[in-house]
Structures are given as C-alpha cells and as structure tokens.
C-alpha cells in the first residue's frame, strides 16, 4: 500500500470517446445466441451421457458434458458477473448465478473478489485471484486440472458461509453489509449439492452426481488451460496490464468456449466492453500492446518454463516487451 500500488491509476491506451461508446454498447442478441448454444450443447451431451450410462460410450459424452459444465461456465460466470454479456441485467444475474454454481463459487463473495482483482490485478497481498502464487510447483498446479486444490477450498468456504461465518480473505474484500446475501446463496448451493448426494445414495448410483456437482471437478481441465494464460509467470506489483496479462490468439471454437477472454489485456484495460466487442477493441489498441501469443501452444511455450523456474526462483518473471513508443507506468 505504501508503494502506491493499491487502487492506483493504471495505464490505458487512448481511444476516442465516440469509438469507446461503440465498444461499450450492449445487446442481448449475441449473448443469447452464445448462451443458447452453450446450454443446448450441455443438454445434448447430457442426454447422450444418460442414454449411454454404464457403457464405454458414456466416457466421451461425460467428457463433453463436464467440460461444458465445469470449464465453459467459467467465462459465462465472468462476463455476466461484469454485467456486460447481456443488455438486460436480470439475465446477467440469472446466468451469473447458474454459472457460479457450476464452477462452485459462492456468487456474492466472488463478485467482490473479482472487483478486487480488477482494482489491484496481481498486486500481491491484495488480489485474491492470483492463480499461481510464486513458488507453486507444476505438480500442485496440475492437480488443479481436476479442481483438487480450489474445489476443497471452495467447499470449505461454502460450509463456513452456511453457518454464518466468512474466511479471513472474504473479510478483507467483502463489506459486512453483503455477508447475509453470501450466507443465503451458500446455503442454496449446499442444499442442491446435498440433495444430489442424497439422490445418488438413494438410488445407489453415481449418475446424479456425474451431472451435478462432480463436473466441477472432472470437467475443470479446460478452465485451467485457458485461465493460466491470463497472468501466469508474468510480473507482479506493476500498474500496467500489458506487463502482467496476456492476450492470446485462439480458434473460434476456443473463443466460443472462453467467451473471448483470450483478449485479456483488453478486458482488464476496459472491463465495460462486452466480450463480443473485444476483437474490435483489440484492433483499435493493438499498436499499444506487446505481441499477441500465437495460440495456446505459443502461450504455454512461455508459461511452462517460467513456472518451472519460478518454483525454484520466486523472483523470476517474464518481462514483456512493450512497443518502444509506449512506456509502462511502473
């Protein structure tokens, strides 16, 4: 805080106001189309998984269902949490809560956590959403592919919220006036999970849990693969998103599953811009940004060696090269 990093002024490219207004314009059409496709794929793969239950064919069906449930929900949670995906705020709220359940994030406290992440992106001691704290081993990180670190942590938080308590972390970023909302949504989440467990026990089959609850774990892998590209291995404690965030070129299928969050520098610089306008925003600011990573392979070619090195040397980070005419603010 003494270093002036908290709630500080961050670097922004200059964009004419008229153009910025266009980028920020909301619509329901694009988000409705994408959400309908996502839910239809989820339902379709779910029906296939049910029909093939007990056979080997259920494995690919559950792989698809789980990925759509446990991974593709993450970017829906994120966009609707910002309130930018749909023009109609009530629809954002409904999708946000549904997706929050799917990724097992209590929606009230996570909204505050994410506001802090935008306020103090990768500022150590402030940002509660640093996915890879320095020194994390690749073994620990790989267990996240199946939610084995975050999942139990979120379940403990939900249990605590259910009985009217908050974690020290939540106390730090969530105002007291919000606690009661968090407690009630945690209770609803836990009730659904307990009811599903009860159903599974009653019928003596794991099938209900394979549809509700467990996909958050077995279907999380793509969330991690996408999510690590955002900030892993880059600088901490800087006031320039170009130094601590990545924009990665991705295929249309990946961009659908990830709601264009591959344009992550642009999103952090201008969080009021809906996901569907991020490609156009990228074109407007790209001269101001470091080179875009060519696909997941291009990003991981940097991330994996960087994380391996950081596990031994926590002072190491990837120094991004900025366009020479544009100086960093920190």
């Amino acid at each position: 805080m003494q270093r002036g990093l908290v709630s500080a002024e961050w670097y922004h490219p200059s964009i004419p106001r008229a153009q910025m207004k266009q980028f920020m314009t909301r619509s329901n059409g694009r988000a409705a189309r994408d959400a309908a496709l996502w839910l239809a794929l989820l339902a379709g793969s779910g029906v296939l998984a049910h029909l093939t239950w007990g056979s080997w064919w259920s494995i690919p069906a559950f792989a698809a269902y789980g990925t759509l449930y446990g991974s593709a929900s993450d970017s829906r949670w994120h966009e609707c949490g910002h309130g930018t995906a749909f023009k109609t705020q009530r629809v954002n709220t409904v999708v946000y809560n549904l997706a929050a359940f799917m990724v097992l994030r209590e929606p009230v406290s996570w909204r505050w956590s994410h506001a802090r992440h935008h306020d103090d992106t990768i500022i150590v001691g402030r940002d509660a959403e640093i996915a890879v704290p320095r020194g994390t081993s690749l073994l620990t990180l790989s267990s996240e592919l199946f939610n084995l670190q975050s999942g139990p942590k979120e379940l403990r938080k939900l249990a605590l919220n259910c009985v009217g308590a908050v974690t020290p972390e939540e106390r730090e970023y969530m105002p007291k006036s919000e606690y009661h909302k968090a407690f009630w949504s945690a209770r609803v989440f836990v009730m659904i999970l307990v009811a599903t467990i009860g159903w599974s026990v009653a019928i003596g089959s794991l099938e209900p849990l394979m549809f509700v609850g467990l996909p958050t774990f077995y279907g999380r892998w793509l969330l991690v693969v996408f999510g690590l590209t955002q900030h892993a291995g880059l600088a901490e404690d800087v006031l320039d998103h170009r130094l601590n965030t990545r924009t990665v070129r991705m295929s249309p299928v990946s961009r659908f599953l990830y709601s264009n969050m591959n344009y992550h520098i642009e999103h952090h610089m201008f969080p009021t811009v809906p996901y569907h306008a991020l490609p156009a925003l990228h074109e407007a600011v790209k001269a101001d940004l470091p080179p875009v990573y060519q696909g997941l392979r291009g990003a991981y070619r940097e991330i994996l060696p960087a994380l391996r090195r950081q596990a031994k040397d926590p002072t190491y980070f990837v120094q991004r090269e900025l366009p020479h005419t544009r100086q960093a603010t920190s």
Partner: protein
Amino acid sequence: MSETWLDVCSADELEPDDVVRFDHGERTFAVYRTSESRYFATDGLCTHGRVHLSGGFVDGTIIECPKHNGRFDIITGAAKATPATVALGCYPARVVGGVVQIAVTAAVTTPAPNIA
C-alpha cells in the same frame, strides 16, 4: 445557501447517452445527457473505487463505472449494482442558451439508501 450555476460545456458537445467530466476547484462531477436530452449531474467519482465516472457507460439513466462495473442511477444517485453500494450526490443541471450548467453548492438529493 444560494445556488451558483456553473457553465460545463456547450450542449452540442455532450452527445445523447453520454457523460462528461467537469472539475470545479477541488471537486469533480459527472454531467450526463440522456437519449431524450435530459441533463443530470452527480459526483464525478465512483463511491467504490474513486474512479472517474466520465469514462463509464451510460445505459438509459444508469451510469456504469469503467473500472468495476458498479452501477448508479443518475437521477437519484442510488447505487444499483455492486461493488457500488454507496449512493452518489446529485446536483441540478440545465441548459441555458445552449450551454450546459450545473449548480454545485450542495447535493440536491438526499443520498439514496445503499443497496445492501
């Protein structure tokens, strides 16, 4: 306390569905024009993150903060979406002779209740 009207900008400079920043002394304000060309003024900084609302998105009579997407009603100042929970002060605004003016002696609305 008597009202002092201050010139903000020419009415043409402020487009429909837009907001402009106006600084006066050590205070900063956000002045809005709706799609029906009604004019409003509020405190200029978001009550959550102390960010200038003039960089935000005007959606009807709602201003969305450019940093954290907190939302406020520009007519009442009420916080409408978290992380904004504390209302903005509101000020009279008008157009006289093609010039947008606001009265800044004091906030005219009692801050609306917080959303919590």
